[in-house]
């Protein structure tokens, strides 16, 4: 393992040009067409689940369009980091002023705005106006998980690209590639397990891999390793909370939920993903029960994206789980 | 409808648990009669008694001026009253007609 330049592998192995990207052929082709004639490129909206390549492609575009000093002409923002739309506006304003007409080779500056589906509709309305007023100097690449949460006026001004979840084989392929480059002994069962736990999120898969490599320190990474690493990455409280719910104690489960969200700062999506994973590891549920639960999870995962309050949706999910305690009668829960 | 007098009332035997609950809610018991010790939860007492006696239970009122008993149902403001059927001080229909009601009220020894 390379000790000299330890960096996060998610960055080390991030494709730097569009050509390096293995999947998403149609997205890449359309974007290449725009890049041949930059003036024709509209604002872009990238929608898809986490870890599917949205930011990667946005950065590739930036590099290709803006050349060597692309960092000076691309502004990266996250809706959750910025304190409200006013700050976004300020930063874009300053940025577009500073970068205007600096170099002939630069068609326009880029604003990459991530997590815009987490902006309220009034913030998005303000964003649309910002996009309009700076359109001669900037192009926006908006990134989100759910395009349905983006208001129509913004959608109509963008070319929308959907990033589908990676296929399992592709993830495995990539993991094996990284393992080879890093001289790691990766058992194929381990790769499969990583894929299971990452649910199509390549970034997460690579992080699990890197962490496992450190964990084993030269020894082979097998399925056990992955389970241990993922177990450690997930707070014990998740399992405890799940068990409380499954034994019918909703108030306790809900309090643990709040603690997870405040102390650990997990979002609703994080928690539901982690609960899902924990479900896998629960020994005492039958296949039928697991299947039923997965259905419930799916429903609430969707509602999380639609609903207004994460607390409510997650508590409602926990409440559905308490039903399982009833139907199981008095059998001991973990 | 069961009417309980504000000054004190009797109840059928209800068992130890209910008795304790009633005393906790604000009733005292002396020589066979229940007295109201604490008015803070009187609504709960009324509703509770209605439930366990299985009929609507109301309290009588004592007119501040003439000191006579009367029922809320006799009052013309019954439907609008926010504290109906509760044993709180009030003024009966007859005394309400008096013109110098407030002066009389002031003179009362409360």
């Amino acid at each position, binding site marked *: 393992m390379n000790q000299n330049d330890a960096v996060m592998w998610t960055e080390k192995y991030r494709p730097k040009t569009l050509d390096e990207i293995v999947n998403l052929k149609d997205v890449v082709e359309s974007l290449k067409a725009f890049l041949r004639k930059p003036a024709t490129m509209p604002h872009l909206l990238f929608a898809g689940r986490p870890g599917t390549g949205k930011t990667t492609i946005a950065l590739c575009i930036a590099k290709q369009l803006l050349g060597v000093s692309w960092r000076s002409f691309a502004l990266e923002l996250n809706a*959750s980091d910025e304190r409200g739309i006013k700050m976004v506006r300020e930063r874009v304003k300053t940025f577009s002023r500073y970068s205007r007409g600096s170099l002939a080779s630069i068609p326009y500056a880029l604003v990459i705005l991530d997590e815009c589906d987490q902006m309220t509709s009034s913030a998005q309305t303000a964003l649309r106006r910002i996009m309009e007023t700076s359109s001669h100097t900037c192009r926006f690449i908006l990134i989100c998980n759910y395009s349905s949460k983006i208001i129509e006026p913004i959608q109509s001004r963008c070319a929308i690209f959907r990033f589908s979840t990676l296929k399992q084989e592709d993830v495995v392929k990539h993991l094996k590639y990284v393992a080879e480059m890093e001289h790691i002994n990766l058992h194929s069962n381990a790769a499969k397990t990583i894929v299971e736990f990452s649910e199509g999120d390549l970034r997460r898969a690579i992080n699990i891999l890197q962490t496992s490599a450190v964990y084993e320190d030269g020894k082979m990474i097998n399925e056990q390793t992955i389970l241990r690493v993922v177990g450690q990455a997930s707070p014990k409280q998740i399992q405890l909370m799940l068990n409380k719910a499954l034994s019918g104690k909703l108030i306790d489960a809900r309090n643990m939920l709040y603690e997870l969200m405040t102390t650990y700062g997990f979002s609703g999506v994080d928690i539901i993903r982690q609960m899902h994973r924990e479900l896998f590891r629960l020994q005492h549920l039958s296949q039928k029960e697991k299947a039923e639960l997965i259905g419930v999870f799916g429903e609430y995962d969707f509602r999380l994206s639609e609903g*207004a309050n994460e607390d409510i949706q997650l*508590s*409602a999910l926990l*409440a559905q789980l308490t039903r399982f305690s009833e139907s199981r009668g008095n059998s001991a829960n973990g | 409808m069961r009417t309980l007098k504000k000054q004190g009332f009797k109840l059928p035997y209800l068992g130890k648990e209910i008795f304790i609950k009633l005393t906790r809610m604000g009733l005292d018991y002396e020589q066979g009669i229940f007295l109201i010790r604490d008015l*803070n939860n009187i609504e709960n007492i009324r509703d509770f008694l209605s439930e366990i006696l299985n009929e609507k239970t109301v309290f009588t009122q004592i007119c501040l001026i003439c000191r006579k008993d009367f029922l809320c149902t006799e009052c013309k403001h019954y439907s609008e009253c926010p504290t109906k059927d509760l044993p709180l001080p*009030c003024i009966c229909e007859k005394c309400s007609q008096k013109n110098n009601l407030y002066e009389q009220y002031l003179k009362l020894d409360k």
Partner: protein
Amino acid sequence: MDNLMWVEKYRPKTVAEVIGNEDAKASFTNWLIKKRREKAVLLYGPAGIGKSTLVYAAAHDFKYNVVEMNASDIRTRKAIMKMAAPAVSLSSLDEFSFETKGNLLLLDEVDGIFGQQDRGGVGAIVKIIQNSRIPIILTANNIEIQKLRPLKKICHLIRFRRVRIPLIVAFLRRICQAENIPAEKEALEILAQNSLGDVRSAINDLQTFCESRKILRKDDVQFIPLRNRGFNIYDTLKGMFSANSSVEAMKILNNSLIDYDTLLLSIHDNLPLHYKNPEKLAIAYEALSKADVFRGRIQNEEWRLLKYVFEFLSQSTTIAPGEFQPFNFIFPPTKRYLLMRTSAERTLLKTICTRIGAKCHVSQKTANSEYLPFLKIIFRKKSDQASQLAKWLRLDNSSINYLKKTN
């Protein structure tokens, strides 16, 4: 001609003059002048029925001086301690005329203290009560909120209720006599009924109607717009949970003053307290979840979706009609803020996540959930890998130590 508001002009100055709540009055004066078991008394009940008025009237009768603090203005622990502390210590007696028996501390509207910003507010009051040498009087509109539990334990509780109509009529009549404005009895009755036991608003209404009139007739007040006595949160929650059908619960909703976002969260807080049976709780939460989904869909002013929100809200509280048992409502809604044990830790975490975000092109939030858990494992396990990464991420020593520790 004096321009005084009648509520001021005719404000009772002695205890005898205060109408209504006779038992509460007696209980209060007993507490004040006789040997007190509790150091503080909590007067509670709806607005405008005479709680503060009684306090001042009693102070007048028994020669106390009132030091008042409106608790909703001064919410933090520091502020309360700062203002109240001098008043409750012996030394302050020197500042006042020797004709008074001493000070009374009046904390008005203590139920205005809630929320995260007021952390310590109630605790500070408890401390003050414990250390005080003077009588302390608290008033509140609603004491069913959880925040006030510590106060309820140490105060003598006296409940005030809406004043009954015949008494209000008597009082209004007296004002009319004093103002030389003959008034028809029915007119006064309508005003009294309309006030719903709030003497203050009855007087205000009376003044409004008498403003331009020499005689007050029944017809003048006949079509008085009903004071929008929508339900407050306590009444709304109680009404919705005790309703016998979702239709009834919907009626309560429609008459509620509370905004639906707050209601959504309040019902969410209180559902498990109401439903003890997991099956019913799950069904109720299903309905609430749907209400929330529709709320989330109201993006572009699609208020027509609101009726679905209300529909599902009404369903969520009436899954088990007829089984309502009163309980202590949680209000205001539990707010989750991103709290860590200490703000120092919070700042540290933010720094770390910002650094990760800068290098890995993610937001702090994503850094926290996608990178931090793994970095912690790496840092705990292997120190040279860790120090390389730390360099790359530009982490300082305290950040590194934070990542290394097992939590």
